[in-house]
């Protein structure tokens, strides 16, 4: 009996030990990083770093990918290879500009932009299931957060209105603003419920990383799947990104919009020609025409109008004049 009690107590105590370890941040867990502090730090580290053995990102690649020196790949996230892809955050080129304790965004338009692993990750506190835990950010309204509450808040550090933001780069905080007529549900669950959505997606919120792979991707804009922005033949792979949430069968069966099949299949119109995937300030259904393709029509307008359940467009698209032509019910 005594033996059984002893065994029970022993097993329970071990469980507590395991639980204590499981609650540690990944980098502070000696079972994962068995060289402890020395894995990253040295009493006499690289100059102008917080005692780091090497500069970021090379330091990170030592575990998070096969680095040029051929170290073993220990972590599941092969960041090094993602960072070799065509579309990526330019960490390799610009991480050296990161300063410990800096506040993003930069203050002057003349300041060069940068991105470092440490802009999105807080290595002493990040966890496997929450790799950006502890990173700072801004709310959509521009309020600084010592610890960002969601991924998008981290992205807003650089992808909202910044003094040094390139002209072509969108201010995503405007796109996702819940006061907009429509938006992908980053900040707030969408008011609209498209019939094309896969089950479980309706009414849910999503994150930037549901569509983008911040480390790197073969697809433009670091998209998770292919999304062809130019007009052309429809296929599953052409709009793979959209179809990952919006069922292709439903879209092409005109369940959400009566003219979808005609536009996408017969006319070879890209989703991007009519939609802004982030959000639309003035129109429902993320309608925002791509000015590279769609031009004002004879009326001088380039507009989408909704009257009751009827929608109509005033525009010129590849010489196809839409003059208030009713394009179907909403």
């Amino acid at each position: 009996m005594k033996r059984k009690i002893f065994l029970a107590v022993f097993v329970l105590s071990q469980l507590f030990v395991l639980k204590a370890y499981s609650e540690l941040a990944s980098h502070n867990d000696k079972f994962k990083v068995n060289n402890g502090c020395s894995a990253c730090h040295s009493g006499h580290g690289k100059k102008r770093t917080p005692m780091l053995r090497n500069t970021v990102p090379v330091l990170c690649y030592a575990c998070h990918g096969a680095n040029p020196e051929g170290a073993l790949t220990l972590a599941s996230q092969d960041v090094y290879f993602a960072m070799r892809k065509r579309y990526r955050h330019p960490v390799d080129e610009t991480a050296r500009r990161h300063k410990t304790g800096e506040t993003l965004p930069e203050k002057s338009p003349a300041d060069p932009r940068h991105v470092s692993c440490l802009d999105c990750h807080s290595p002493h506190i990040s966890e496997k299931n929450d790799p950006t835990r502890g990173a700072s950010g801004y709310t959509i309204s521009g309020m600084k957060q010592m610890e960002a509450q969601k991924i998008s808040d981290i992205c807003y550090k650089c992808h909202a209105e910044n003094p040094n933001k390139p002209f072509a780069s969108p201010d995503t905080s405007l796109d996702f603003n819940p006061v907009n007529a429509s938006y992908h549900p980053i900040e707030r669950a969408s008011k609209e419920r498209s019939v094309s959505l896969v089950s479980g997606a309706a009414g849910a919120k999503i994150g930037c990383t549901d569509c983008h792979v911040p480390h790197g991707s073969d697809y433009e804009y670091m998209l998770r799947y292919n999304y062809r922005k130019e007009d052309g033949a429809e296929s599953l792979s052409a709009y793979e990104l959209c179809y990952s949430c919006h069922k292709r069968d439903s879209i092409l069966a005109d369940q959400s919009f009566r003219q979808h099949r005609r536009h996408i299949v017969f006319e070879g119109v890209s989703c991007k020609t009519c939609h802004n995937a982030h959000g639309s300030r003035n129109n429902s259904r993320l309608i925002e025409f791509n000015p590279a393709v769609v031009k004002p029509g004879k009326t001088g307008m380039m507009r989408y109008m909704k009257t009751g359940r009827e929608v109509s467009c005033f525009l010129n698209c590849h010489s196809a004049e839409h003059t208030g032509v009713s394009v179907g019910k909403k």
Partner: protein
Amino acid sequence: MNRQVSRERIMWIRALALTGFLLFVPGVCRAGIVTTKHNLSLTGPGSIKATIEQEICVFCHTPHGATTELPLWNHQLSTQVYTLPSTLAGWPKLLTTVQKPDKASRLCLSCHDGTVAIGLLVNMPGPGSGGKITMQTGDFMIATDYGYIGTDLSGSHPVSIAVNDQLIADKNACTTGPGAYLLQYPPDGDPVKLKPTDNKYGGNPGRSVVTPPGFAYNEGVQCTSCHDPHLAGVVDFLVKGTGTADPTKGHPGNVSALCDSCHQGVCP
């Protein structure tokens, strides 16, 4: 009568203890240092050593005519101005009053910054005054030497910083957000020890200590907080926690236990 005897006895015990101490300490130091790279004499095991000189202690210590930085210090000190970790953004808040390294750290840097000849002494062995012992590998430590630190200390742990209640309170206020490590005094008896410094933090000197009795100083972090230059058989002269090297990662060892002495827990 009894009282007088006991006083006499105490005096004898003290005298014996002092004699023993004086005989014992240099013995320990020599026994320790002789097998380390800090044995710079001809008999040293490292690559940096003298061509002829066989005295071991003389590279750092002299009984007479020493420098004023620390008693018995024999090596010519450096006059360099160092680039400090406080030049990094984020650090200045904690290190606004730090001055150039002082006391023990200056002694280490007198060789390790690479600007003073390793053999340049205030008092050469035997009669006479200052001079230079000739080394096999040239006068100075150079950038490729393992122990070379140089004059840019911006990637090193800050040294000669006063540690006081205010520094600990400021650091642990976690104003830089989550993830920064907390700070504490090393526990009593810990091999990691705070050492004398004249620098100040927040306008105040480091915590005042009087150990041993009659020897008062203000505490701070110096090279000698983590390294004991006489210690043999450990990695990098570290006083604590030199674990087994892991060749798959190219690290000299796990020194987390050393860091733990002052840094435990993370800002939430």
